[in-house]
């Protein structure tokens, strides 16, 4: 098991509102990215609230798949409350954050996301996106109303339909997988996927370099193509699982 992460301000933004957390080892762990939004420092604070919530929660990670899912939902609710409360106290109308996370414990892998941060898995020779963006354009695309191309240029392409901090109730998508045969997992914010295509991501992940270098390479690719947003990647490489 090898872990790596990188977060970068990008080429345009003056602040980095993304946050990232990786904790654990080959037996159990959690990797999480959050893409905050809101004026002033609201975005940074929102993403940080989520990171801190899971940093505190990690020592109490349960073992059964059902319990892990419950654990995730519970701490997302707690983070949501904190963001809402902070926004209210500071009189901020728009404060929130996305979240994409992967948690592994024994043979169980749980994938969770809210918003347009994504989780990808590399298996054999295939890169698969495990998450469907909770975004306005992706929902229209799923309904067959927009093509991939129209999605990329849509003026409302960065409008997300779910976020931590957007309402009292937040509904994450949770996937519980038993013994998935992943070689590696990438968790990233849209600063990466806005610019870097799935093909390039796959190529980078398949390179025979260290997981650290792969993370760095992804950041470089996004920045070379404009780096219009903050870019964050977290990589989990299941070296020992690969044989199985």
């Amino acid at each position, binding site marked *: 098991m090898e872990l790596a992460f990188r977060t970068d301000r990008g080429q345009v933004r003056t602040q980095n509102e993304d946050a990232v957390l990786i904790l654990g080892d080959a037996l159990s762990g959690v990797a999480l990215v959050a893409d905050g*939004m*809101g004026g002033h420092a609201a*975005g940074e604070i929102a993403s940080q609230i989520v990171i801190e919530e899971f940093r505190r929660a990690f020592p109490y990670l349960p073992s059964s798949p059902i319990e892990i899912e419950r654990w995730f939902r519970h701490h997302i609710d707690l983070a949501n409350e904190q963001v809402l409360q902070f926004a209210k106290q500071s009189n*901020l109308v*728009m404060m929130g954050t996305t979240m994409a996370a992967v948690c592994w414990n024994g043979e169980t892998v749980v994938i969770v996301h809210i918003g347009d941060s994504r989780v990808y898995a590399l298996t054999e020779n295939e890169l698969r996106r495990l998450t469907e963006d909770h975004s*306005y354009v992706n929902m229209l695309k799923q309904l067959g*109303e927009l093509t991939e191309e129209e999605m990329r240029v849509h003026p409302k392409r*960065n409008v*997300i339909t779910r976020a931590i901090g957007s309402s009292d109730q937040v509904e994450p998508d949770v996937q519980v997988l038993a013994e998935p045969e992943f070689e590696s997992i990438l968790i990233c914010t849209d600063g990466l996927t806005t610019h870097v295509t799935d093909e390039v991501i796959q190529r980078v992940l398949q390179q025979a370099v260290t997981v650290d270098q792969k993370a760095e390479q992804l950041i470089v690719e996004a920045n070379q193509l404009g780096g219009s947003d903050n870019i964050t990647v977290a990589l989990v490489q299941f070296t020992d699982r690969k044989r199985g």
Partner: protein
Amino acid sequence: MRSGERINDRYRIEQQIGSGGMANVYRAHDEILNRTVAIKVLRSEFSHNEQFIRRFEREAHAATSLNHPNIVAIYDVGDEEDLYYIVMEHVDGVTLKQYLQEEYISVDEALRIMGQICDAIDHAHANRIIHRDIKPQNMMIDQHGNVKVTDFGIAVAMSNATLTHTMSVLGSVHYFSPEQARGKFADEKSDIYSLGAVLYELLTGRVPFIGETPVAVALQHLQDDPIRPMDLNPNVPQPLENCVMQALAKSPGSRHVSVAAFKKDCMTALSRERANEPKRLPVNQEEFDQTLVMTPVVAEEKPDTPAPSSPLPVSTEQETKEPVKKKKHKWWIWILLIIVLIGGSIAAYMVADEMSRAVVPDVVGMSIGDATSELENEGFVVEVTERASDDVKEGEVISQNPQEGRKPKQGTTVTIVVSAGKETVEMPNVEGLSQSAAERMLKDLAFSDLEIKTEASETVDSGDVISQSLDPGEEVVPSEVTVTLVVSTGSNKVELSNLAGYTFDEASTYADQNKLKIVRRDEFSTSVPKGQIIRQLPTAGTAVDPGTELTVIVSEGVEPTDVSIEREVNVEVEQPDEDEQPKAVEVVIRTVDARGEIEVLRDNITETTTYSYTLVIAPDEVGTATIEVDGEIVRTDSVTYAQAKEAQ
């Protein structure tokens, strides 16, 4: 901001009167002009995004050029430190949304309000400003019923994609047009759609589409027809419903040509001339574009439809009026006849009323002939629209309007949509596109069976489509054809490497690998070491076909030259007795060498003498000297080139 605070030493804040996603609105007093104003202040959260600020200001400035009684005037745009604000005319009233309170208002009032809104938008369009966010929340109405529209162009600033990552700034999706839902550029036609949505709400008390999420609402804008206003408010006359529905057409080309045309359509809806106007048929530009033709089934009763190529002219109702009127007359004559036949006027009225209504049968799935006769038997006028369908067999009814079970008056037009068979599309021209672009284009058009072949090409770049199996322009059903694309693998030609410095063996390998015929030529060279290639033909960089002869000139090293060698010969003369006179002998030395035959020496000697001479020997030749003494060859001295070379 608190009341009493001053902006720019001029505007004293009195009270917050509204708040939006990006800005708060305050009532304030302009202490210089001594008047009440409204000030919209950008929330400080957003006052650090420069790009957004610039856009906010630019759009606000554009709107200052608008001067119209139905537009909220903009007096000033300014900033003070981090405070960005717009000073506007203060309207003592409520927003139209608040005014409606989710109930519909009378048709007369709706039209009076709509007329003012149309004037405002028309004025903006004349000044090339598109509102893009027309909604009742952006309209103020005072106690005299005057309406003023606000927030021109602000929507553009709001939707700025580089603005912070957003979640709530989707704006109101209830009034935006299908093209705005798709992310296309909003133009005058989009404003007309939104005006239609507002009118719909004025007439029915509800927005055209209701959904749990913005996406659900957006999807309905794209796909669904709204419930007919007449079904929600029986007071809405058919001509006005026609007007609303045309403004709400999915395709911009099917809407009114201008706000003025829309207004005229609304304002004349209650006129006596239009009292009997039938339900206006949806003239869907897109459907027309897809080979759709309105087929007259009951020819004489079919209203004129405009030419498919032109957008629906506003005056259509004028054209449709005549035949319809005639038809209605016939009906009345018919009913009068019944009345006369039956006699009693009350009974006659009841019968007439019963007669005049009929239940619409379910004709979906029937053949066009069966459906038409069934409907006509019930006394309806049938209007047929064709539409391509992958699921419904050609000639069968896909849908009908009104639905089965409705009880409209007899003589009502029932529109049935009949399948024109599977949808055909015009085969696009993908030659010259990259393979991925071509595949994407074809998949978007629902071509699913693609076959890719590859071929070398001198003219088409590698990865681009050389040719396609179906000719561009051909009408085909995408799901029923296989499209074979021939994709270029690039040029077959080999661009020759520079072989200078390689050995012949290496060059041979290179030639084999590239299927070239190698030819060797040797040359001397003073600069290229022996065995290495000096140059080649064709030269490096030339693109050649496989099988081409590649001539390499191999160095033989430095060209050898003639070699000179000094030789000596000792000619002995016998010493005579002491008293005798020495006897002289004649010595002649000749050489035959690279210089030709030369007599190098002729001498008379009386004593032993050593002579030296030079032989110049050409490569692979032999130089020979002959030494004659008194005409007799006493010695022949031959030196080979190699020997001479060695002696050097």
